[in-house]
């Protein structure tokens, strides 16, 4: 199985505060990974740092994707290399329709002109499968969308852009029943032997509907433990205390 | 006489560029004012204080009078923090009707200061004054300034503040305006990461004319300027509001906001507003919002359905809006007193 993402000894800070303190992670084709951890452990930071969000500074370590060093790549180059991240709170961009936006993005990522009619048909099919309201794709990007609509829109983008690795940051809305359904359904539609998913969450609910290969526990900027799907269940019952304590002892 | 010029002019016939008042508003002859009570300021009070110079002009003869013919000069060098606020009360009465004063507060580095200035009385008062607050590096000053005249009076007031690096100035201006209230407020945000907040509430009835000219100049980086004004106009009161936030070149990552709410509690009340945002720096976040109108009927209906009379319902809504502006006032008891006073001022026949 081919390695897609390889994160090595990654350190990052926001302002003066170090948030990632030497994180290692490897994701191969066909795998579903989950990162869990208590609040403030650096879960949401990880996706943003991989994507070189200018709000964070990488201070050490490397990120390779599909054999290519993307540690210092530009945000759009990272997207073009085949990684997708869903946003907890996607930006509202007025005057740009969802349809036009995704079509433009797909054209950039696939580096070709997108056939209007084929694309429209496919997008409508996907939108329908996600139970999106009919007019949603014609509305302005995220403007006035409810939380659930924003979530669906992120998942729709994932389906249309068909990345090799989708990083789904669910720390915020992971508890909402509808959001869980949307994300599960989206992953089900998206997942193949050739791609991979990384879910970042603090709740186990989303994991019940999915076949998960690895669960990582992120505490204080590092992955302190990795296990299989049963680990999530243990977390649900006992919380993170054991891992936090374990870290201190170690 | 034309007073209180707007920093930026617009069409003359809008009547907002300046405040037109009758010449009789100015008082030539100034009698002494002795009824001044100063509390919690012993070690800060500078008895050798000299007259100060100021650059913000109100216009007419008021500026000359203030510099040459004043009857009170107070200077405070505040070099350490203390729990109790410095209180200065000017009590107006038959023997103390006219106040032409200069007050300076120099807040030294790293000092936390709380200040209260109040002007009150049951006479037809005449006031022409200036307050200067200089916040040195890393200092913090909170001021409450109250004017409350029971009879038709003249209140001409200037503020000229400077806010240095990492310092914070917050002024709550409470004006129970009666007669003429002409206020010019200026803050200069000199230093990086400086913060200047002006919260103003006013209630005006009768034929009172309120002219507010609030300006904040942002020079420092990562600084924050805010002007929040809430007022209620009764009877035939008129209000002019001129607000300016000026983002000067280089004030990167700074933010500024202006908010104005004017509640018209009478169909004969009149409101003019010119809230300006001037911007020569790209990397800033400037916002302005204003609204004018009467208290929402829906809101009133809801409150009245819970047993309030219409007038009490209106009072409740107005007090709630004032409460938001005065929310973080350092003295909770004082805030309650103010809100009670608002309640009293709002006793009127619809």
């Amino acid at each position, binding site marked *: 199985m081919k390695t897609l993402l390889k994160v090595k000894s990654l350190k990052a800070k926001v302002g003066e505060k170090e948030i990632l303190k030497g994180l290692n992670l490897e994701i191969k084709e066909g795998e579903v990974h989950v990162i869990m951890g208590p609040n403030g452990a650096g879960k949401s930071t990880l996706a943003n740092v991989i994507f070189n969000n200018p709000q964070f500074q990488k201070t050490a370590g490397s990120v390779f994707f599909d054999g290519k060093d993307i540690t210092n790549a530009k945000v*759009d180059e990272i997207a073009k290399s085949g990684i997708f991240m869903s946003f907890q709170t996607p930006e509202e961009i007025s005057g740009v329709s969802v349809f036009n936006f995704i079509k433009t993005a797909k054209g950039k990522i696939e580096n070709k002109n997108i056939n209007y009619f084929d694309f429209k048909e496919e997008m409508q099919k996907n939108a329908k499968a996600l139970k999106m309201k009919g007019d949603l794709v014609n509305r302005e990007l995220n403007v006035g969308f409810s939380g659930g609509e924003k979530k669906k829109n992120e998942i729709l983008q994932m389906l249309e852009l068909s990345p090799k690795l989708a990083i789904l940051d669910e720390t915020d809305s992971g508890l909402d029943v509808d959001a869980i359904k949307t994300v599960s359904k989206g992953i089900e539609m998206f997942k193949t032997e050739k791609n991979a998913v990384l879910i970042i969450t603090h709740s186990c609910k989303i994991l019940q509907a999915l076949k998960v290969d690895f669960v990582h526990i992120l505490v204080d900027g590092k992955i302190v433990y990795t296990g299989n799907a049963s680990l999530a269940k243990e977390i649900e019952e006992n919380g993170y205390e054991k891992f936090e304590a374990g870290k201190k002892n170690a | 006489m034309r007073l209180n010029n707007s920093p930026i002019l617009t069409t003359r016939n809008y009547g907002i560029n300046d405040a037109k008042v009758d010449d009789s508003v100015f008082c030539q002859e100034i009698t002494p004012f002795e009824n001044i009570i100063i509390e919690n300021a012993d070690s800060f009070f500078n008895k050798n204080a000299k007259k100060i110079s100021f650059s913000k002009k109100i216009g007419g003869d008021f500026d000359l009078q203030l510099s040459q013919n004043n009857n009170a000069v107070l200077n405070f060098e505040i070099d350490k923090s203390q729990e109790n606020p410095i209180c200065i009360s000017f009590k107006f009465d038959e023997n103390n009707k006219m106040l032409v004063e200069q007050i300076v507060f120099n807040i030294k580095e790293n000092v936390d200061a709380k200040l209260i200035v109040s002007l009150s009385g049951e006479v037809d008062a005449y006031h022409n004054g200036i307050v200067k607050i200089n916040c040195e590096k890393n200092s913090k000053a909170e001021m409450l300034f109250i004017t409350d005249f029971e009879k038709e009076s003249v209140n001409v007031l200037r503020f000229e503040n400077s806010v240095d690096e990492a310092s914070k100035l917050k002024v709550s201006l409470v004006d129970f305006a009666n007669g003429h209230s002409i206020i010019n407020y200026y803050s200069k945000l000199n230093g990086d990461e400086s913060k200047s907040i002006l919260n103003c509430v006013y209630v005006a009835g009768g034929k009172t004319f309120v002219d507010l000219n609030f300006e904040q100049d942002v020079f420092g980086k990562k600084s924050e300027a805010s002007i929040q004004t809430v007022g209620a106009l009764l009877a035939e009161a008129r209000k002019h509001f001129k607000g300016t936030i000026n983002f000067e070149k280089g004030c990167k990552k700074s933010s500024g906001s202006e908010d104005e709410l004017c509640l018209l509690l009478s169909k004969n009340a009149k409101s003019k507003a010119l809230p300006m945002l001037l911007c020569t720096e790209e990397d800033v976040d400037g916002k302005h919002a204003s609204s004018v109108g009467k208290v929402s009927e829906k809101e009133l209906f809801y409150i009245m359905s819970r047993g309030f009379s219409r007038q009490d319902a209106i009072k409740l809504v107005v007090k709630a809006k004032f409460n938001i502006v005065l929310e973080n006032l350092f003295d909770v008891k004082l805030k309650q007193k103010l809100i009670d006073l608002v309640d009293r001022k709002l006793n009127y026949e619809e």
Partner: protein
Amino acid sequence: MPKTKVKEINQNIYDFKNQDNFDFKMKKGLSEEIVREISKKKVEPEWVLDIRLKALEVYHKLDLPIWGPDLSELNMDEISTYVKPKTDKKESWEDVPEEIKDTFDKLGIPKAEHEYLAGVGAQYDSEVVYHSIKNSLLKQGVIYTDFDSAIRDYPELVKEYFTKCVPLFDHKFIALHYAVFSGGSFVYVPKGVKLEMPLQSYFRLNSPESGQFEHTLIIVDEGASLHFIEGCSAPKYNKVNLHAGCVELFVKEGASLRYSTIENWSKNMLNLNTKKAIVEKDAKMEWVSGSFGSKISMLYPMSILKGENSKTEFTGISFAGKGQNLDNGFKVVHLAPNTSSVVSSRSLSKSGGVATYRSLVSILPEATNSRCSITCDGLMLDDISRSDTIPFSNVEVDDVEISHEAKVGKISEKAIFYLMSRGLSEEDAKAMIVRGFANPISKELPLEYAVEMNRLINLELEGSIG
């Protein structure tokens, strides 16, 4: 982050010059003699000359505004107020002289007329050279002609309305306008007639050191509706050109009028235009305004909501680039109960350009139960430009709702990151956001004009490390 440069609006497609070929060009300056001569050339009735002379008097009495952009470079002694092109008005493009026809061909006017307009007027310098309207509209009694012909052919109608919306003492430049006005369009839409396709008048100023002073008068009678489009452009010269046109609009009971403008004067133009509408009971007036050209622009369309339940909307965008000072906005006066106004204004400033939003909302005591909502956004594309917001409101009645929101700043970095995470380069992301910013205007325009506007905001952004 690398600095991004936004290219100037591509003016080249408008910047072709024809030779300054004219039948007659008035000597420069402004005097009674010149005013009389313009009137004589036009062979107009005495009452029109009287208005011109009165206006000249008013012009000399009024001062320059004490506010707004500096107009000191305007010297009327250097401006020719009347330039007659080498042709009369034609009703077929075939008859228009080749050189002038070529100009309008390049601007796409005959093609547009063929495809989606109900009528077209074209003015070249001081005179209208082409005017035409679809036969079907003529049969319904719609009048669409040049203003000189209207004075001649419909004197009663013109007399009844001319100067009644914009009086000649409004300000100095409207007085100037009435003294030397020439050209423009006249429209009358009879009761109940609803035009499905727009009418368009296009104004081209070719002659250097001259002024254009066209007068447009539109009456939309009871229950009728009209969409009128106005376009303007000029090639760039080194010396100042002046545009002081006037638009008077009468929207009668239950009628609706949409007035769209794409203004792209050259960057030596002082655009001191006056537009006003009187809106009667149950009527609706919509303004759509794109302001791209001019060196200085002072343009504040105004709606007077005179009748109960009347409504007005304003949607406008200004793009101030290098050397431009665009002082634009909107004015509304609420005079009757239950009136409403909605204002949405956007501006972009870059390369040292100055964009100012200046507005008036006045709600007078009679206008009970009225509402007004204003939003304005200023987008700064670099740190050498300027964006000011100067909104004035006057409220003289309690039973109203006025809300105003304004914002100024640069393109959000978070928004750029979001779009880049979907594969767009930084330049593409910014361009997409800027186009989205202008979208409220482009979506109000007919498709063909929206395309035109997007071309004007020709945002070929180029990255360079800086």
